[in-house]
C-alpha cells in the first residue's frame, strides 16, 4: 500500500488544523452559513436529512487494517455504531456532530486518511478495479496510476474550481469492474503495437439526469505523458464547460455538444502547445510509487490445495460461498475473497463498527492486512491463501458477513435514498430489501445467475440505476414514491444505458414486477445465457408484455 511521505502528512495535518479553526469560528457565530458551507464541503461534511454526514475518501478503495479500525472507532465514538460504504469506494457516516468533525479529521490524519475532495467541483476520489494487483491477466496495477493521479489532483490549483465535480476511474484488465465508461475520464491500461504500456483515454461518461458513455479521446497515451495529457483534457473542460447551468456543467455535456472529434481536436491542439510544460511523469517516479504496490511475500504453494478442496467437498454452505464470492487470484494457491455487505433484508453497503473491527482482524490474519472497497458496496480480502478460506468463511459467517450472493440478484446497489439523503425523491433501501426478501431462496438466486439490480432514489443516480441490468429509479409522483424500471444497462467495457420499461410502479408493486422480469428471462434464456445477454438478444418487448399484461 502507499504510505504518506512528509509532504502528504503535512498537507493532511494542516487541513485538519484549518478546519478545526473554521469549525470554531462557525460555532462561535463568526462565520455565516454562506461562508462556512463551502469550507465544510471541502472537507466532506454535508448536511443531510437527519444530521451532518461525513464522507471519507478511500483512495481507489484500498484500506489497511489500521485504517479500517479507525473507521470502526469513528462509527462507535462519533456516530451510531455503523458506516455506509458507497458507490465511490468511500465510506460515509450519517450522524456526525459539527463539533466532533475536527477530532475525526485528526483521527483520520493519524492513519493517513482525510475527507478532502469528497465534495465540491473538483477531481473526486479516483476509483479503480477492486482486484487491482491480484487479478489474473492484468496488464499493470491500476493503483499505481490512481495514486499518481491522486497526488497530482490533490488541491491542484488549476482544477479546484471546475464547472462541476469530476470523476476518474482506472483499470488494467477486462472485464472492466471499475465502470470506466461511466466516468468523466476513464483510463484503460493498454499495450500498443510495440508492446509498450500506456493508456486509452476516454472522456465524457457520466450518469445523473443525462447518462452517457465515455468516448475515446486517444487510443494510446504513453505513461510518461499521462498527466500532461490529462491536463489538456481537463483544461479544455475547465475553459469550455458550462457554468451557467448546473445540469449541463459536466464534461459529458461538453463532449456531446462539441462531438468527440471536435473535442479531441481541441485537446490535441492544447496538448501540442503545452506538452513540454505539462506535469512530467518520469519512469523513476512511476517506479517509486509502484514499489508501494509490490506484491506481498506470497508463499510458494502446491496446487490443488487439498485442505481447501476437501472442505469444499464436505461443506455445502462453504462450497456455495466459494462458488459465488471467491475469485481467481493470479498467484497459485491464493484467492480473492469478497465479503458481501448485502445480507438479505439488510442495508446495502452498511457495516457495523464491530464488523469493521472484525474485518480488520481477518485482514491481518488472512490477507496481509489489506481490505478493498468495491463500487458495488462490498469489501474484498485480496490475498487469502486457499488453505485459509474455510477458516475465514467460518469467522465471517459468525459475524453476518458470509452472504454468498456476489453478482446475484440480491447483491443490489442502493443509494441511501430518502431514508438519509437530502436530495432524494424516494426511498431506495426498502425497495432493495423487499426484492432481497422475494428472492431469499439461495438455490433460486443461483439458478437465476448473474443479475445486477441497481437502485437510485433520485435522478442523480448515485445508485447507478442507468447501468443496472435491471435499474430502478425512485421518483416523486404528487407526493408519493414511485419507481421507474429500466432494462439492459451495463457498466463494463460493453457499457450501455438501460431502457425504460414503461410506466412506473408504486413501491409495493416493485417486487412483483421484478419477479415477472426474472420469470420472463428464465423462460427465454438459452443454456447458460446470463440475463443481460438474453435481454440483448430478445429486446425489451417480451419483458414489457409480461410485466404489463392484464391480470
Amino acid at each position, binding site marked *: 500500500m502507499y504510505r504518506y511521505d512528509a509532504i502528504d502528512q503535512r498537507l493532511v495535518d494542516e487541513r485538519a488544523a484549518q478546519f478545526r479553526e473554521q469549525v470554531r469560528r*462557525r*460555532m462561535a*457565530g463568526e*462565520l*455565516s*452559513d454562506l461562508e462556512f458551507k463551502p469550507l465544510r464541503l471541502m472537507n466532506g461534511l454535508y*448536511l443531510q*436529512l*437527519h*444530521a*451532518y454526514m461525513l464522507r471519507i475518501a478511500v483512495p481507489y478503495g484500498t484500506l489497511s487494517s489500521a485504517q479500517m479500525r479507525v473507521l470502526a472507532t469513528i462509527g462507535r465514538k462519533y456516530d*451510531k455504531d455503523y458506516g455506509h460504504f458507497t458507490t465511490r469506494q468511500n465510506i460515509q457516516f450519517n*450522524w*456526525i*456532530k*459539527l*463539533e466532533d468533525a475536527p477530532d475525526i479529521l485528526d483521527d483520520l490524519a493519524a492513519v493517513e486518511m482525510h475527507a478532502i475532495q469528497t465534495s465540491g467541483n473538483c477531481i473526486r476520489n479516483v476509483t479503480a478495479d477492486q482486484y487491482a494487483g491480484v487479478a489474473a491477466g492484468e496488464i499493470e496495477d491500476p493503483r499505481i496510476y490512481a495514486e499518481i493521479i491522486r497526488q497530482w489532483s490533490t488541491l491542484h490549483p488549476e482544477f479546484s474550481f471546475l464547472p462541476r465535480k469530476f470523476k476518474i476511474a482506472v483499470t488494467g484488465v477486462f472485464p472492466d469492474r471499475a465502470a470506466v465508461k461511466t466516468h468523466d475520464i476513464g483510463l484503460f491500461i493498454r499495450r500498443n503495437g510495440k508492446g509498450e504500456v500506456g493508456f486509452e483515454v476516454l472522456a465524457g461518461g457520466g450518469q445523473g439526469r443525462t447518462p452517457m458513455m465515455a468516448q475515446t479521446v486517444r487510443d494510446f497515451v504513453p505513461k510518461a505523458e499521462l498527466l500532461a495529457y490529462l491536463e489538456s483534457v481537463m483544461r479544455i473542460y475547465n475553459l469550455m464547460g458550462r457554468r451557467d447551468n448546473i445540469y449541463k456543467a459536466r464534461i459529458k455535456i461538453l463532449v456531446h455538444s462539441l462531438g468527440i472529434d471536435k473535442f479531441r481536436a481541441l485537446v490535441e491542439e492544447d496538448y501540442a502547445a503545452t506538452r513540454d510544460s505539462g506535469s512530467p511523469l518520469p519512469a523513476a517516479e512511476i517506479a517509486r510509487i509502484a514499489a508501494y504496490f509490490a506484491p506481498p511475500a506470497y508463499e510458494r504453494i502446491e496446487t490443488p490445495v487439498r485442505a481447501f478442496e476437501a472442505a469444499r467437498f464436505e461443506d455445502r454452505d462453504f462450497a456455495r460461498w466459494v462458488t459465488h464470492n471467491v475469485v481467481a487470484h493470479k498467484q497459485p494457491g491464493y484467492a480473492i475473497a469478497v465479503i458481501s455487505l448485502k445480507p438479505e433484508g439488510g*442495508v446495502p453497503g452498511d457495516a457495523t463498527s464491530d464488523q469493521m473491527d472484525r474485518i480488520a482482524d481477518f485482514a491481518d490474519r488472512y490477507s496481509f492486512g489489506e481490505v478493498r472497497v468495491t463500487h458495488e458496496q462490498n469489501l474484498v480480502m485480496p490475498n487469502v491463501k486457499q488453505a485459509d478460506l474455510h477458516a475465514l468463511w467460518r469467522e465471517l459467517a459468525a459475524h453476518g458477513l458470509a452472504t454468498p450472493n456476489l453478482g446475484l440478484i440480491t447483491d443490489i446497489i442502493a443509494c441511501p435514498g*430518502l*431514508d*438519509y439523503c437530502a436530495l*432524494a425523491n*424516494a*426511498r431506495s*433501501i*426498502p425497495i432493495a*430489501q423487499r426484492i432481497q426478501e422475494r428472492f431469499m431462496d439461495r438455490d433460486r438466486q443461483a439458478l437465476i445467475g448473474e443479475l445486477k439490480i441497481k437502485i437510485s432514489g433520485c435522478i442523480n443516480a448515485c445508485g447507478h440505476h442507468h447501468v443496472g441490468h435491471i435499474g430502478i429509479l425512485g421518483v416523486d409522483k404528487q*407526493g*408519493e*414514491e414511485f419507481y421507474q424500471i429500466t432494462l439492459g444497462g451495463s457498466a463494463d467495457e460493453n457499457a450501455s444505458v438501460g431502457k425504460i420499461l414503461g410506466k412506473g410502479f408504486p413501491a409495493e408493486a416493485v417486487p412483483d414486477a421484478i419477479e415477472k422480469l426474472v420469470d420472463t428471462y428464465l423462460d427465454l434464456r438459452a443454456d447458460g445465457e446470463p440475463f443481460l445477454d438474453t435481454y440483448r438478444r430478445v429486446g425489451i418487448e417480451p419483458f414489457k408484455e409480461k410485466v404489463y399484461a392484464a391480470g
Partner: protein
Amino acid sequence: MSTKIFNANDINNGRVVYLAADGSWSERIADAAVVQSAEDEARLQAVADAAFEARRVVDVYAVDVAIEDGRIRPLVYRERIRAEGPSVRLDLGKQSANG
C-alpha cells in the same frame, strides 16, 4: 392556506429542530408551533429567519402538516422521515428510544 410548521437543522449537532411558539427550537415535532394563518406564518418566518441570521440553525423552511388525533403529521414522506428517522432503522433518529 395550508397548515404549516417550521423546521431547520441545529448548527452544532445537525439534528432536525422545530420552531416552538415561544421562539425556541425543539427536537420534538410535538413542540412545533402550528401556523394556520398568513399572519402567523409571516411572524414565525421572521423568527426563524432571525435564528438563521443569528447562526443558531441552518436550512430553515416551512413544512405542510396535518393534525391527526391531536398529533402533528407532515404531509410528505420526506418530512415524516426527518421527523421520525430512517424507515429502515427504527432504532435510529427521533423514533428511537434514545430520540
